[in-house]
């Protein structure tokens, strides 16, 4: 089955990005496909390459970059939400791309299920 995910909160502050990641791992392990993860609202803050968490903590940004690369997942950051929050090409982490809100609606149309993770 094809899942689309939407993440609406930034890393560390809310568990949303963690829950979505664990869901994605479990879905992939069961042979499902994650076709796209769409980052909206403060969720765009998952895409900054400047993040540097304490050494004994998980690296939420790099984790998404790696998962995206390993499984061909489209990691899309909403451009309007990103500009409001200081995420641009110059601080964008590997594997993410900036695009429009249409990509979210498209995910709703094309995925079998669109799951939202937020506050």
């Amino acid at each position, binding site marked *: 089955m094809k899942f689309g995910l939407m993440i609406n909160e930034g890393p560390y502050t809310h568990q949303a990005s963690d829950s979505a990641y664990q869901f994605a791992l479990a879905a992939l392990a069961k042979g499902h496909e994650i076709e796209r993860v769409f980052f909206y*609202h403060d969720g765009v803050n998952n895409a900054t390459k400047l993040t540097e968490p304490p050494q004994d903590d998980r690296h939420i940004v790099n984790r998404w970059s790696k998962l995206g690369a390993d499984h061909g997942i489209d990691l899309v950051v909403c451009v309007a*939400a990103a500009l409001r929050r200081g995420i641009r090409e110059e601080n964008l982490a590997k594997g993410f791309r900036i695009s429009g*809100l*249409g990509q979210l*609606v*498209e995910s*709703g*149309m*094309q995925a079998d299920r*669109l799951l939202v993770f937020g506050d």
Partner: protein
Amino acid sequence: MTDFEDYGDIPAKRFMFVNRKAPYGTVYALEGLEVVLISAAFDQDVCIAFMDDGVFQLVKGQETQTVGMKNFSPTFRALEGYDIEKLYVERESLALRGLSEADLLVPVQVMDSAELGALMAEQDVVISF
């Protein structure tokens, strides 16, 4: 508006956007509305539900000069021009907050929790803001 790809071969899906938050205290109402507007370009079957504090988004007479923020409530009046005409409001949420249909800035369909719950269950995609 951007040129989107041709989705002619995919049957339209039923999208419901659920608004549960008051405006201005957080950005969810404003950025939620931006999703609704974009969705209009995709010829899907779109409706919007307002419940809980989301009903405050539709209250008439919003004046935001003194908080220094943009008043986005007039955009709700523009939704008709985007062919988004299904606006549902939960009756219980209005009543609990001392509001009535006459206080709202656009025509809506007021329904009770059971009706709104039934409609929600019929959707393909539900996104809550």
